[in-house]
């Protein structure tokens, strides 16, 4: 089966409901299993020579931070799908992804803060990475607030999508703010903003810099939480489809009442 035909099949909400209904329990179960395994590996690994036992926070902090960004990417891609391809499930996907992405962003902020107190001596500093993640959180809030304050659903969907696409500029900002950006052939050199937060040590052009005893558990956890993210997202999409059916039925009910009245002879 080619990719194309999968998307086409999934485009039909009914089809999506039956497919996702079959997949969801397995996906959720797998996610929990991988998370448990990853955390077990993480907790049995030796403590970090520098950060000591607090390194345990990494196994949840880093996946949350990644999923915060992944969630936004998902919202943005779905929004693009809505605006450009008018894919029937695109808006369902964007709407379902926003609260889940917001939850992981919140978790990245909270676990980061709780890690910051022992490491940096304060829960919060206004450095580039922390600030940009906080802005990402606000962006999620803005998406949800905008949607909830426009009555007409199709209108709300499209406007939210525009906002989501405008907000995409924040993703590179999260990266650049800490690592800086240099484009030699353009002569462009944006320095990193002063920061306490450490730069990427996994996704680097010269390979991961962190020790294997920490790297593998971290990758397992990341995989597990990503699976969980998609399970939650799938559940959210299912709920949203049901909600839209309820709405359609309610409108139909009102129509039927009116039709019945029209048919009934006047008293």
């Amino acid at each position, binding site marked *: 089966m080619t990719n194309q035909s999968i998307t086409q099949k999934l485009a039909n909400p009914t089809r999506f409901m039956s497919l996702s209904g079959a997949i969801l329990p397995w996906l959720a179960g797998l996610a929990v299993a991988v998370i448990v395994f990853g955390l077990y590996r993480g*907790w049995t690994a030796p*403590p970090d020579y520098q950060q*000591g*036992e*607090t390194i*345990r*926070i990494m196994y*949840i*902090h880093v996946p*949350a931070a990644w999923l915060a960004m992944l969630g936004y990417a998902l919202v943005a891609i779905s929004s693009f799908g809505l605006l450009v391809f008018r894919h029937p499930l695109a808006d369902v996907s964007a709407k379902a992804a926003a*609260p*889940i992405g917001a*939850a992981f962003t*919140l*978790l990245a902020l*909270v*676990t980061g803060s*709780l*890690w910051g*107190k*022992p490491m940096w001596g304060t829960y919060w500093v206004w450095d580039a990475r922390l600030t940009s993640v906080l802005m990402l959180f606000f962006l999620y809030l803005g998406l949800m607030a905008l949607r909830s304050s426009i009555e007409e659903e199709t209108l709300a969907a499209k406007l939210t999508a525009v906002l989501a696409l405008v907000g995409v500029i924040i993703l590179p900002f999260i990266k650049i703010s800490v690592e800086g950006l240099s484009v030699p052939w353009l002569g462009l050199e944006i320095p990193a903003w002063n920061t306490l937060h450490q730069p990427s040590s996994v996704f680097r052009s010269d390979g991961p810099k962190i020790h294997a005893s920490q790297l593998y558990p971290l990758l397992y956890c990341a995989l597990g939480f990503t699976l*969980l993210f998609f399970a*939650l997202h799938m*559940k*959210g999409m*299912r*709920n949203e489809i*049901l*909600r839209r*059916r*309820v709405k*359609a*039925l*309610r409108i*139909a*009910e009102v129509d*039927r009442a009116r039709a019945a009245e029209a048919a009934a002879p006047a008293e």
Partner: protein
Amino acid sequence: MDLGPHADFILASYAVYAVVLAALAAWLVYDGVHQQRLLDDLEARGATRRSRAGRAEKNTKP
């Protein structure tokens, strides 16, 4: 297991993590049940999905 001097922070972050994710999952499950119930109610009342409405309607109309 000894978590060193910062045990509180480690445990707190795991606790928050568990609570937030559990709350999110619980809400999604509840929402699903709620919507499904509304849907069943509406369908029981005779309203049918759009794709089925026509046939039902035709039968009842003289």
